């Protein structure tokens, strides 16, 4: 079935450093969504990418969809302590049409 690999599993950075998490699929994706879950909270939708090579920005966050639509990345510039949490990518299963989540990347930011 459809699977998506997300790396790294954990990342510790010093405040002000950059951070990137990656999602990779063996099959072409129709779209990819990104969510953020704060510690103790619930996942919150951040953005959706649909087009090949698409790049979207939200303040210090940059989202990219690969040209082949098989991978995506989320890059945070100059991390802040408010960026702490787990970032998930999610893709639509070609079998069921339901969202399948990556394992998430947990970001810790040291002040």
């Amino acid at each position, binding site marked *: 079935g459809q699977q998506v690999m997300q790396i790294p599993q954990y990342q510790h950075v010093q405040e002000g450093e950059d951070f990137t998490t990656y999602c990779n699929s063996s099959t072409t994706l129709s779209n990819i969504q990104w969510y953020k879950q704060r510690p103790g909270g619930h996942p919150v939708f951040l953005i959706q990418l649909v087009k090949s090579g698409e790049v979207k920005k939200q303040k210090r966050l940059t989202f990219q969809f690969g040209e082949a639509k098989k991978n995506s990345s989320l890059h945070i510039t100059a991390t802040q302590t408010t960026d702490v949490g787990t970032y998930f990518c999610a893709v639509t299963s070609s079998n069921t049409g*339901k969202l399948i989540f990556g394992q998430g990347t947990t970001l810790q930011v040291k002040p």
Partner: protein
Amino acid sequence: SQTIHQWPATLVQPVGSPLSLECTVEGTSNPNLYWYRQAAGRGLQLLFYSVGIGQISSEVPQNLSASRPQDRQFILSSKKLLLSDSGFYLCAWNWRQDNSPLHFGNGTRLTVT
């Protein structure tokens, strides 16, 4: 605007006891509804989803069941809890259109002792 309510926020139950978690959505009609489980420090596992009243699909065989007695109500149940049922249970909804983002409730943290 749409809101999703999930309760209780935390629950401690003994092994073998029953479970009932409730989720309701306001401000929309005919949503897709979902139950996810998240083990500590892990990803999100889809347990059940529903596209309409009485229509439930199960993603994984387990000790749990789900029901949708009303359009905007989704219930997760168990007759006898197991230790392995501990986790963070999240209800979610989205529109009935392709690629619609999920909107999650605040979750229920269940500890089975």
